[in-house]
Structures are given as C-alpha cells and as structure tokens.
C-alpha cells in the first residue's frame, strides 16, 4: 500500500489535514465559548440557568400581544415571551421604530428584586420574512397568517 505520494499530492494532503485540524480546533473553542457567543438569553434559558437578581444580561424574545402599557411620559411596561416562559420588563427611553407587539426584541439590563427586568436599552429584532403590506394583509384576512414564533426560541 506504500505507493509513494508525489510532491503535489503531499502538499494537497498537508493542506487538507491542516484545515481539518484547524476546523476542529475552532469548533471546540467555539463550543466551549458558546455561552459568551450568544447575544441574548430567552426567558426559558434565564429561568433554567437561574440567572439571578442584579446580573447584567440581555433578554431576547417576542413582545407579548397586549402586554405593552404606557407607565409614564417615556416609561413603558411589556412582557417578553419565548412562547414557553415570560418575563416582565420595564423600560424608560426611546424605542426603535420596529418595536411593536408580536415582534422580536432584545433588552439589556438586569432583573430587579421584584422579578421585573429593568432594561436600559431596547433593540428591535426582526425576523427573516419580507413581504409587501398587501400580501401581509391578504394573509391575515385568509387566516393563513402565522404570527412569528421562529425567532422566539432560536
């Protein structure tokens, strides 16, 4: 079986092996760092991990339908849900244009002693769906509208 490799074959083997080893090393490193690479935690992850009061985290999920309440000139309360678990949020400040009920959101802040997440920044997260307004209206009318859920858990 010891057929001698040509120099080209040797170089090619070296490159393929090198890339495979490098890929494996990077995969292991990223797997080990996975908690630091995620941008936000869902409400379920927060309760599962027992992320406690006062810890600075980013909370991501959907703004629950009907949960947005104006509580002051620039203060609002809303609930972030991943369709399994939910966390109440309070925020004072300017909201992004895309902030609305049923849409994705990422809030940065900490859980207060009363269990309410006090956010000091709120970012809107939109999903991968793009369509004209007429199509969205037609889908809603025909009952084919599926409110998102894709972004919530992932």
């Amino acid at each position, binding site marked *: 079986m010891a057929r001698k490799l040509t120099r*080209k074959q040797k*170089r*090619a083997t070296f*490159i393929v092996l*090198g*890339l495979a080893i*490098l*890929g494996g090393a*990077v995969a292991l490193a*990223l797997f080990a760092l*996975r908690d630091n*690479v*995620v*941008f*936000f*935690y*869902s409400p379920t992850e927060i309760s599962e991990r027992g992320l406690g009061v006062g810890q600075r985290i980013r909370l*991501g999920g959907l703004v629950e339908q009907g949960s947005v309440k104006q509580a002051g000139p620039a203060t609002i309360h809303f609930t972030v849900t991943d369709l399994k678990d939910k966390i109440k949020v309070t925020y004072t400040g*300017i*909201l*992004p*244009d*895309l*902030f609305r009920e049923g*849409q994705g959101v*990422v809030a940065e802040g900490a859980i207060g002693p009363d269990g309410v997440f006090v956010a000091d*920044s*709120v*970012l*809107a*997260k*939109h*999903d*991968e*769906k*793009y*369509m*004209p*307004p*007429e*199509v*969205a*209206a037609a889908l809603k009318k025909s009952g084919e509208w599926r409110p998102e859920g*894709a*972004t919530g858990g*992932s």
Partner: protein
Amino acid sequence: MALNFHAYANPARFMMLSRRLVAPIAMIAGVLIALGVYLALWGSPPDYQQGDTVRIMYIHVPAAWLSLLCYTVMALASATALVFRHPLADVCAKSAAPIGASFTFLALVTGSLWGKPMWGTWWVWDARLTSVLILFFLYLGYLALWATIEEPVRAARAAAVLALVGFVNVPIIHYSVVWWNTLHQPASVFRIGGPTIAPSMLAPLLIMATGFTVMFVALLLLRMRAEILRRRVRSLRLAQAGFAGGGREA
C-alpha cells in the same frame, strides 16, 4: 474536467482571452445592476414591517454574499497556488482580495445604516456582525502581508497560508445566525424550506446579486491583467538593472 485546465492557466493565453472578455462582461454587469437598482428603488414594494428602509437590503445582501464569494475564490486560488505552484493562481488570489475587502466594507456600512433605524443601534457585538468584521480584518491582513514581504514568491506563500487559515471563518459567518442567538435575523434566501421573502422582492435581490457577481468577475479579470503586467514590468526592470552594471536596485 474535460477541459485542459493548464491551457487556460497559461499567463500569455490568459492575457489574450481576458483582453477580449473584460468589456462584454463589464457591460453585462452594468445592465444587470442598472435593472436591479431600478427594481430595488421603484419596481418593488415596501416591506410590511420596515417600509421603504427594506430597500437597503438590495445592496446589503448582495455585498455580503460577494464578500463570502470573494473570500472563497481567494482561498481556492491560494490552495491551487500552494499545491500546483501555478503563477496565475497567486495572481488570482491577490487580485480578489481588495475587491472582497470592498464588498465586506460595503456590507458593514450598509448593515450599520440599516441597523440604526430598524434595530435601534449602529452596531452590536453579536456573532454575525463580529464574524463579518473579522472577515474584513482578514482581508486587510492578507493585503498587508503582500505589501510587507518584498519578495513575491515568499509573499505569495505567506499570504496563501493566511487566506486558507482564515477560510475557517466563512462557514462560521454563514451559520452564525443558526448556531447562536444573534440580533441579526436568520437567512431569508439560502435556507432549508425555501426563501421567506416575497417573489416581488426576491427577483430584484437576485438580479442585483447576479449583477454584483458578474461585476466581480470583470473586476477580477481587470485586476489580474494589471497584476500580470506589473510583474512583467518588474522583471524587465530587474533585467535592465542587471545589464546596467549589476546589483543596482531598480
């Protein structure tokens, strides 16, 4: 491949062929991009959530795709250069880098301009944005390596190794939105289960992407021609300096 690869990889033949090809390819790119811009700005509907801001997508997404395509071309050319030691492969890798860096820069800037109105921020350190920024730095590092090592053969080899090592980042960029929670939304076109983008918006996007790709081919051929000519000038200068009494730097 049935084609005799080496016949086309000969620099002299490449110069002859590319000379005739650059202009028509550039014209096709121009027509496609003009059509794409028209459809993107006037011939497509606003988005049901984002309104007219969605039109940034028609530049942002093709630029981001091209940033990955350029890098893939660069890595393939670098591997070919290392294995087969073919001079055209080096020229191809070196010529693709500035184009790729420009597309990456364009994707970063348009993404930032899009992020401010939609997300509420110019920049976040999520996995997608960070990995694309790393791609940009890889391009810059690659170019810097070529610029610092004076001797072309050694520069080519060092740069090719960097290009191959950096290739690990390409699948990470693509899957970053799947593997981790990110602020950036997941893929809309290249995804399991088909595109989640309305046909009236997908058409201009694909036309723009094709236009950008054809433009990349035209630019790559043009840059490769310039690089080959530059190398010829360099070797002529060296020969001249040799005649003129040896050792004098050109």
